């Protein structure tokens, strides 16, 4: 019996198998690397560090934080400009602000009640942060909290400063 034609058919089929395997590898790699990394926690920590550097230097609070009557409202209102913070994001994201931060100052006599408060950014992100523990909403926003102690300019009063930063940017960090 003449089976010479059989080897030619099998040779073609070999290339078909190769293409199937190559396609499978392509699908695996693209499905894995198409998912972005979520860097919002690191971004939040960097924001906290920048805010802390603006508020406190060499163990003492920034003198511009205070005026004759106590904490300066003017410094609070112009906080972004004073501390060189920029909330602008790339155009592909929605027009709404993607960041929020809140700073609370506590006097050493009472570390439970905030003496002064500064907040800037999108207030709506706070609600997302409060329900972050639910699995359904854990990727919506990412919040980072940290705190430190600092003395006032004269070194007489000790303050606890708590900083909370919340970042949305869900489209860029989650798929």
């Amino acid at each position: 019996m003449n089976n010479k034609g059989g080897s030619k058919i099998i040779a073609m089929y070999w290339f078909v198998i190769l293409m199937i395997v190559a396609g499978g590898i392509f699908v695996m790699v693209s499905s894995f690397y198409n998912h972005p990394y979520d860097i919002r926690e690191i971004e939040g920590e960097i924001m906290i560090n920048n805010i802390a550097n603006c508020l406190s230097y060499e163990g003492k609070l920034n003198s511009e934080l205070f005026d004759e009557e106590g904490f300066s409202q003017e410094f609070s209102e112009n906080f972004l400009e004073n501390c060189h913070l920029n909330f602008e994001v790339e155009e592909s994201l929605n027009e709404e602000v993607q960041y929020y931060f809140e700073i609370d100052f506590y006097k050493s006599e009472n570390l439970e009640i905030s003496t002064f408060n500064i907040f800037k950014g999108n207030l709506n992100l706070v609600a997302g942060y409060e329900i972050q523990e639910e699995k359904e909403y854990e990727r919506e926003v990412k919040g980072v909290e940290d705190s430190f102690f600092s003395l006032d300019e004269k070194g007489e009063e000790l303050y606890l400063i708590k900083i909370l930063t919340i970042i949305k940017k869900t489209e860029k960090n989650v798929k």
Partner: protein
Amino acid sequence: MLNKIQKNNKAQISEIMTWIIATIAILIILIIFISASSFLAQKTKTVQAQNLEIDFEKEISLLDTKTLIAYSFASESQRNIIEKWEQENE
């Protein structure tokens, strides 16, 4: 001679049959690997500072450093407040 050929009832599996089984096996393995890679990709790839290999003997939190500096300038009573708060929040 012809009788021998007619009585020969041994079946022979062609080479094509071998390739069909091999194709099915390859497809099953591919489906398993694609499913596994999709499942792994669905888990959010979060980058945390703790996951990075940092030499913690050299790298200290900035905010902890600020607290340490304030502690060094603080009075005795203020230091006690800082120590107490750190113990409660460890």
